[in-house]
């Protein structure tokens, strides 16, 4: 089906990569390391769901890394103060939603360009956090890790939850009218207005949702270790944007799916272990990430040049 061509080609590339790994570095396919990898990336998947929505809506949010850090530390502090896990989760999501709402008001309400707004909030949040915490870790109470489950059980729960959320979003973007509105607004704001949709409201909601998902992901992250690292969110935005863009969501809005994002995320997640198994040092990771973003965008650009000729 031509409509899913882009997603399928990413899936194809992923398949190739996995096949190559099977041949060159079969040690990759051991169940325990794979499960650990999947668990580590589960929060990223959650954030990427939100970013897919933001980019489909023809916006961008580069402050998610800082939002993630703030939510992580905030949740950690509340947990350390004895709050029950459920409330901590709620608090984390709420903090994220509030941060997202701030972005949303400026972008949707004042029609400011999202790149510059989220650049400002990125730095403000990160520096604010540094100022308050001075890089200090937060020690979490024992009962919080894995929500009290065993490690393996906890890992499976997180992975299953992330996959479940992915499914929910895939369904919502396709079968919920609100999901379709996101596509409409991202394609053509004026046509959306003429069709009776309120573009500002949709844009605002997308940013709030992005923040809430980031808060959720932060919670999913902190229960994986006994401490909260305040720098845990660094570089998250690039990782997530790369996954979304590679997965076929056009930066010009209006097209793409979370399935493509998922394929892109898997592809990028496999890059780092591939590098390890191929004995390429890890510090090439950022360069490769940037190169992959550029390649994906160039490929899309060449394709639309051909279409428009």
């Amino acid at each position, binding site marked *: 089906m031509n*409509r899913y061509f882009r997603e399928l080609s990413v899936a194809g590339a992923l398949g190739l990569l996995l096949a190559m790994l099977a041949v060159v570095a079969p040690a990759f396919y051991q169940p325990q390391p794979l499960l650990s990898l999947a668990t580590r990336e589960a929060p990223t998947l959650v954030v990427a769901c939100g970013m897919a929505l933001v980019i489909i809506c023809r916006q961008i949010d580069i402050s998610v890394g800082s939002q993630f850090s703030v939510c992580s530390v905030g949740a950690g502090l509340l947990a350390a103060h004895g709050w029950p896990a459920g409330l901590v989760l709620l608090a984390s999501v709420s903090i994220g939603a509030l941060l997202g709402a701030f972005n949303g008001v400026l972008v949707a309400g004042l029609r400011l360009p999202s790149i510059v707004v989220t650049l400002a909030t990125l730095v403000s949040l990160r520096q604010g956090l540094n100022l308050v915490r001075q890089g200090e870790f937060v020690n979490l109470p024992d009962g919080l890790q894995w929500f009290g489950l065993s490690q393996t059980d906890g890992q499976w729960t997180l992975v299953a939850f992330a996959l479940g959320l992915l499914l929910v979003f895939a369904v919502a973007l*396709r*079968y*919920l*009218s*609100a*999901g*379709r*509105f996101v*596509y*409409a607004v*991202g*394609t*053509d704001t*004026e*046509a*959306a207005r*003429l*069709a*009776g*949709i*309120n573009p500002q409201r949709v844009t605002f909601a997308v940013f709030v949702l992005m923040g809430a998902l980031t808060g959720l992901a932060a919670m999913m992250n902190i229960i994986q270790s006994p401490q909260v690292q305040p720098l845990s969110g660094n570089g998250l935005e690039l990782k997530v944007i790369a996954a979304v863009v590679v997965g076929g969501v056009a930066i010009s*809005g*209006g*097209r793409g799916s979370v399935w493509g994002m998922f394929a892109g995320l898997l592809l990028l997640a496999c890059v780092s272990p591939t590098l390890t198994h191929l004995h390429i040092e890890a510090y090439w990771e950022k360069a490769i990430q940037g190169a992959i973003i550029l390649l994906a965008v160039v490929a899309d650009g060449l394709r639309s040049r051909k279409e428009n000729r």
Partner: protein
Amino acid sequence: MSAPLLELRRITKSYAGVHALRGVDFDLQPGEVHALLGENGAGKSTLIRVVTGAHQPDRGSIAIAGQRVTHLTPSAAQQLGVACIYQQPALFPDLTVAENIALRLEPSTGLRLVHWSARRERARSLLARIGASISPETEVRALSMPEQQLVEIACALGAGARIVIMDEPTASLTQKEQHLLFAVVRDLRASGVGVIYISHRLDEIFALADRVTVLRDGESVGTSPVGEINEAGLIRMMVGREVTQIYPPAETEPGDTVLSLKGVGSSACPVHDVTFDVRAGEVFGLAGLVGAGRTELARILFGLTPADRGEIRLNGQPVTLRSPQEAVAHGIAYVPEDRRRHGVVLEMPIAQNMSMAVHRRIFPGTWLRFGTERRHALDFIRDLAVKAYGPDAPGGSLSGGNQQKVSLARWLATKPKLLILDEPTQGVDVGAKSEIHKIVRRLAKQGLAVLLISSDLPEVLGMSDRIGIMRGGTMAAVLPGKADAQEVMALALGTAK
């Protein structure tokens, strides 16, 4: 005798000193196809805007289904059952046809389940009613313009509109598609819907319409049942007028051929197989209806859309025009139709607008010389009688006519050999119009070759030394300047033989 679906009384509307509509009466009965005929600029689009609520009339009354409506807004009009199929559809290019129709018709509450099969079914049935062979799964981006129009019609159908306005619907349809469209229109009529059908194709009007109203210069010349009038009569109503405007006469004989086209066309636009030439000192008028390809031809000549067929010669030498820079280098200047978007940069001062095309000449070494620029602007302000408070006035602060003069000044500064004017007096008040005409005649006298694209028939007839009539993307005929108005119109419409 049921109430008319739509009743307009003494509708008057002006824009910036131009009277677009002057006391027009119009009514639409249920189950009727009422054609609206008139040249470009006669007021048809303004009337439509009033009916769809996009603009408020200065005077006059609107009644829909017997009820007076005082302040008609687009959403109110939609609710009252007015739907308009424009030539530029407002669809979502990245979404499918089924979704486009669904988004228009479904309520805009967010938390509803989307039933794709129902959406597809509804789209399929609506498209089938029109007889359009478009798959609901196609992305709108992949549809041609006529196909997109059919989708719009399907939307209107689905919205249960009682008053459907079709603005030149068959402009780019094939024969087969036209027949399908007629069937749709007849269907609508049979179900009691009233259709306002704007078209230039007289044969369509006679085939489809019950009544026809002719607009001319913002006034309604008359309404007649289709059976009681013939083609000649319609053309007479459209065109016949006293020539009240005196156009400056030609004073010199045309010189050598400046521009020569043979079989020119481009696969990227409807223009094909265009052959004609323009001589120095001559004003060559390019007449034709909207969509005939005149602006597209101008874009080809200015390098915005490169020609890939045929030969273009300037002063005898073959040239390729792949970009505006190349065109300007060859001495071609283009004063565009859309002066607010392409002709003048509204935010920049007049002086900067005027110097924009001649940087290399008046700013040697790329160094800006404000004094020179200012003098340059003052010269043109004086020569063209531009009314502004100074060379620093931003382009956006001027009236349409003065903006046009600034746009003209920009290109005159390049001392071109061929000047292409695209609708130079559209939306310009009478005084400035006359000034622009005198300027054009003066330029021709100085040896410039002028290609004048205009939908204002008296202007074309009065100003041109020769007239080329375009139709369907090609040159239908070339007539001498003192041609008969009705003959020109007939050629443009395609009814002449």
